């Protein structure tokens, strides 16, 4: 089994060395660190349309590089973050925003999880309240007992229920 532990240790060492890789090339970086930081921040929120599940900051696709350069160009030209985002969504739609905006067509997306959570909590609360209020079920009436006996095919007096004795 030492072979396995060794393998596991090796895997952990490798994993520890893995750093999240950004695709930003040195020649793309802006000289102004503040602008560059904004560019990185914006790029992390913009989807790469070629790979679709990576941000343009992470992706090596040529289009992602073009968009990274475009974001930096807009920033250098004096655009605000919102203006840069609008520039890209004008061309590619809200789909490029990795964080979808809160607007009527995304209400379902944003509010469905909390709504489901609320419904779940309410259902559990209702269930618990009902159980506490209910307590012990009412004992069977003589008539009900007779019907149970008939269904189980028992003699009317064999009902000293041993299985129910626990409660």
């Amino acid at each position, binding site marked *: 089994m030492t072979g396995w532990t060794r393998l596991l240790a090796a895997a952990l060492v490798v994993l520890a060395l893995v750093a999240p890789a950004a695709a930003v090339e040195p020649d793309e970086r802006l000289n102004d660190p503040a602008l560059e930081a904004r560019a990185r921040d914006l790029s992390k929120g913009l989807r790469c*349309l070629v790979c679709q599940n990576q941000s343009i900051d992470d992706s090596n696709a040529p289009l992602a590089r073009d968009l990274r350069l475009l974001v930096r160009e807009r920033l250098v030209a004096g655009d605000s973050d919102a203006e840069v985002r609008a520039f890209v969504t004008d061309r590619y739609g809200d789909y490029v925003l990795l964080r979808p905006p809160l607007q009527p067509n995304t209400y379902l997306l944003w509010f469905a999880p909390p709504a489901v959570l609320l419904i779940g909590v309410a259902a559990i609360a209702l269930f618990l309240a009902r159980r506490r209020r209910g307590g012990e079920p009412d004992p069977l009436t003589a008539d009900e007992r007779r019907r149970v006996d008939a269904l189980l095919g028992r003699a009317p007096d064999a009902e000293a229920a041993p299985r129910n004795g626990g409660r």
Partner: protein
Amino acid sequence: MTRLLFIVPLLVFAGLAGWIAVPLLSGSDPRALPSTLIDRPAPEFALPALPGDPAGLALADLRGEVVLVNFFASWCVPCLAEHPLLTRLSREQGIRLYGVNYKDEADDARSWLDRHGNPYDRIGADRDGRVAIDWGVYGVPETFVVDAAGRIRFRHAGPLTPAQVETVLLPLIEALRR
């Protein structure tokens, strides 16, 4: 009343299943992205010509009739796949076809066109791909239908297929021409 509550999860499940099944069974491509430019004026642009061509391509050239604008590149394999179809549309159906040569070396584009034939009425060379970004292009080939007023009416990402040309593209162009 409480007994009916047990049906609620079933109804929720049925609703969810239906909601998921409709797009799944309709055969639409889940990766296809809607263009934001549909029914909006085509973006302004003016591109230089490929060497050997008399003129490039600009927005003004698109005005006046229904045209196809096709983004292509010599390095793009699916572009070659749709090339015969575009040739037929241009030569046999008499549809005006404009090409935007996307991020290509001019010489490569020229020899690609010489080898396979040039179906385009005019071509603009988009060396840095900026015009493509303005059009919301995220890969080649992409094909747009632009109406006589210069508005984008249809966009298809990826190579065109004969079935799609028959059922979607030609009827649309026919309708826009009327």
